[in-house]
């Protein structure tokens, strides 16, 4: 495999007789913001789950930050941050207690100062002692980002990070993603349905259709390859209409 941040080689995943992911081969260069698009049930979350070692591939392989997801899962886990869709956190614990727990599980010792630094980066100070049960959806998403970057991972996985957010929450999240990428050099792999955010955030995109990668290119080249289409949305629907036909 290459020196990419993420590289998959014929990665496949079956659930019984259902093939959720079919020979996925892609590379995401270090420092990219990669957006994975696709219809519901296309295999986006399965892809993320395999790359974050939560699921084992049925066949094929993948490397994340130079570690094989099958042979060196622990190495992968040390190198990544992950925010799943709709995570709730521990309502009875304060923000600091929640983050301290995840930081320590990631191997950080005495992480309190690091936690405060991260909260400052995310413009989320002053709530250390508040219980998470009082947080809104948008605030929980920021907590989610915080826990994912505490240990300064080189690769960040975000599964539908804008799900359920209001427009202000979406904009804040976008700015955070851009900042993590530009200031800290994090490679970001993001599943999303929000095509407008993809055009504002991502440097490259992939489109999954029924478990198969039907398109993978930089955003600029994608837009250039479809000169007749005005937006990414129209390009996406054209590719989808090829699926239907």
């Amino acid at each position, binding site marked *: 495999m290459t020196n990419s941040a993420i590289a998959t080689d014929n990665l496949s995943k079956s659930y019984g007789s259902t093939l959720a992911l079919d020979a996925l081969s892609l590379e995401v260069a270090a420092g990219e913001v990669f957006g994975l698009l696709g219809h519901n049930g296309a295999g986006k979350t399965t892809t993320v789950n395999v790359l974050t*070692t*939560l*699921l084992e591939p049925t066949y094929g392989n993948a490397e994340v930050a130079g570690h094989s997801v099958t042979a060196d899962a622990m190495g992968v886990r040390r190198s990544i941050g992950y925010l799943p869709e*709709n*995570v*709730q956190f*521990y309502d*009875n614990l304060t923000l600091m*207690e929640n983050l301290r*727990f995840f930081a320590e599980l990631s191997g950080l010792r005495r992480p309190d100062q690091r936690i405060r630094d991260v909260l400052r980066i995310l413009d989320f100070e002053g709530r250390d002692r508040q219980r998470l049960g009082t947080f809104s959806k948008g605030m929980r998403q920021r907590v989610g980002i915080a826990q994912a970057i505490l240990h300064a991972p080189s690769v960040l996985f975000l599964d539908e990070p804008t799900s359920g957010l209001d427009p202000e929450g979406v904009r804040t999240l976008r700015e955070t993603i851009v900042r993590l990428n530009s200031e800290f050099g994090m490679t970001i792999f993001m599943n999303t349905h929000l095509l407008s955010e993809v055009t504002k955030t991502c440097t490259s995109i992939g489109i999954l259709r029924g478990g198969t990668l039907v398109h993978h290119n930089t955003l600029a080249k994608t837009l250039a390859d479809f000169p007749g289409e005005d937006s990414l949305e129209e390009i996406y629907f054209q590719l989808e209409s090829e699926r239907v036909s």
Partner: protein
Amino acid sequence: MNTFLVSARHEMLNTRRARTAHILLIVFIGMVIASSVIGWVTNQTVTGVYNKVVADGLTTAPNPFAGVSPLYYARNAVIYVLLIGSLMAIVLGVQATVRDRKASTVDLVLSRPVATPARLLGQLAGLAVVLAAVIGISFSVSWLIFSIINGAPLGWGDTGRVIAFGLLSWVLLTSFALLGMLTGLRSKQQTTALLVPFVIWSAVAFVLPQIGTAARPVSLLNPVPALASTGGYFDVVSAFTGPLSLTEQFKRASSIILQDPNVTGEATSSILILLAFLVIMTVVVVVTPRNRMRSGLNE
């Protein structure tokens, strides 16, 4: 800080914060303490009954409670450990493993460099510390009450017995906490996770002893272990159901430790059975596969 210690500390913190755990802990501590008082009041009354019976010339049998140990007043605590303690431990165990599934934090945990046995053992250790603290507090207060009733602090021998009873209670409660953890990991619904261990507890506490001794369910709520019916069927069946009736084994061992005059024999076999159950349950829980820990929770 390693996964085991982090998980243990996290578990203790969550239990401390959970209001439901507080309700159960207060009820348990309160009832164990109350049981000492109830035991003393009842003993005074029964002694009065015996004296009246002798005075009326109705019996020449010796007083069955002559020379009874001050630990006799702890006998009701045996039942409260069995009833309230076991069910409390089940609830704590279920909450420990259901929490991550409900809050969807299990993926946050498992996407970190965490070995699942260390994670689960750590959670168990946290619960075990909580249970030890609860038992320690309630039995310490009970010791004070026994000493007051006795008119003097309990001697080293009796104190040692109280400690031994506390340790045995901890073994039983930790085992039931493990049962709760197991169903919390494997059930598809939160209600099922809570209810299945209750049903298992009912089977162990009532059905098994009944099959082997013909004891009725309500009589099994008595701290005195059930008198075995003898003869053909019962002799054969009780050989199988006896060791599996963990609650009866606990009652028997506790009664011997607390020097209840109604129970004789050695406590060793009962203690070994309880320890074996604890070890087996620990192994069963700790080998839970990662994908099982990630399975979704419905309601």
